[in-house]
């Protein structure tokens, strides 16, 4: 076998890593806009799905344009509030939603809370709020749409990064999400009670409960915790809206 001097080895390594570094940074920079757009499109699609729109996005010829158009058409208003229900005028709701991971690490009182308002042809409004939390293996998140009474859930979508396939991962399936529709998050006294995810089957007559996933208890409980954690911050704002 040919022997190589130490100098050769050093020079070889230097050249190799330089080529690789240049190549990778070039590709990463080139593809970054596309990748960021994918993330934004996904979030827009999730917001739309929570109000029952864009269900047929997979069949759309140009998915990105389709989602952007639908989003612009149905999401008529968006804003950011703080814990006390004050409007944060200078904040953009969509940007805050993209930074939700960082937001939920702050204490509830210091977070910014984005709100998206859906309305079709000037019809009744729906209020969509993003929620995010920790599942069993990684982050879980979702979008909860409330009817105009700011109490009844009109739709909810959830997703996850890597919950157990077939168990916790089922939070993104219809059979888990559909029961949320029609549940209410405030009790008769007007206190925030959120929606309880009940192991072993919810009481069908209870309007604050849904079924947990058998075998996915930790994910189910984490999801319940996530809704409480993220929606508590909206209570002040919702009460203010309801009183006006």
């Amino acid at each position, binding site marked *: *076998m*040919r022997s*190589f001097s130490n100098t*050769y*080895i050093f020079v*070889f*390594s230097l050249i*190799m*890593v330089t080529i*690789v570094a240049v*190549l*990778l940074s070039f*590709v*990463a920079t080139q*593809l970054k806009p*596309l*990748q960021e757009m*994918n*993330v934004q499109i*996904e979030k827009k699609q999730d917001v739309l799905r929570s109000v029952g729109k864009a269900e047929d996005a997979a069949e759309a010829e140009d998915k990105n344009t389709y989602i952007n158009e639908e989003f612009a058409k149905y999401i008529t208003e968006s804003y950011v509030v703080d814990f006390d229900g004050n409007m944060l005028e200078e904040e953009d709701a969509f940007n805050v939603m993209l930074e939700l991971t960082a937001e939920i690490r702050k204490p509830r009182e210091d977070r910014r809370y984005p709100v998206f308002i859906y309305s079709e042809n000037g019809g009744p409004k729906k209020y969509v709020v993003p929620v995010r939390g920790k599942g069993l293996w990684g982050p879980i998140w979702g979008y909860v749409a409330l009817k105009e009474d700011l109490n009844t859930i009109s739709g909810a979508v959830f997703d996850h*990064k*890597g919950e157990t*396939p*077939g168990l916790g991962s089922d939070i993104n399936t219809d059979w888990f999400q559909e029961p949320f529709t029609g549940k209410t998050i405030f009790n008769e006294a007007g206190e925030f009670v959120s929606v309880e995810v009940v192991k072993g089957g919810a009481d069908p007559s209870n309007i604050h409960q849904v079924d947990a996933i058998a*075998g996915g208890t930790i994910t189910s409980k984490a999801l319940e915790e996530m809704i409480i954690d993220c929606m508590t911050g909206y209570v002040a704002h919702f009460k203010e809206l309801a009183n006006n």
Partner: protein
Amino acid sequence: MSTEKEPLFSPKNLKLLSEPLGQSNPITVQVLGICSALAVTVKLKPSIVLALSVVVVMAVSNVAISLMRKMVPPRIRIIVQLVVIATMVILVDQVLKAYAYDVSKQLSVFVGLIITNCIIMGRLEAFALGNKPWPAFLDGLGNAAGYGFILILVAFFRELFGSGTLLDIQVIPQAFYDAGYVNNGMMILPPMALVVVGIIIWVQRSRRKDLIED
């Protein structure tokens, strides 16, 4: 070394392509790359994408290493191999994130884990470092295809019995469910992937006695 020019698809070269599909299959015979074979085979679609990704990474890395084989100092050859594989994997990952976002989400860490797939490094070390680019390309293609073939086979059975679907299309008719048929939840979990791989190995060895070790 013979200076005579060998035809591109000589029997010897074709063997490089076909052997890894059968008698020297990386998964069932060499038992390499099992980790990802267990993890991503819940559904067909991610398995197919991962198989294709491995084909690309493997074929290109094999050729790259083969082209460099006379320049690579043996003392740092493992590091050089790792750098080549890692570069390719990052490229594939970035491209998937940009053009096949949904699938890249499903595959999550497993694209990155191609770097540690023993098959790739094994082929670079055992074959590409000592052979010309063309045979190295075929060898890479063959081994990746052998790996991908098993991946897709396992995913086929797991998705069929675990979810009743193939490529997310319902194939087990509703009538079966009405008659009391239930999807096998075990199929979705990694242990059953191991059992399915085991059954494939069993079937293969019972048909080819020469593969059975003492």
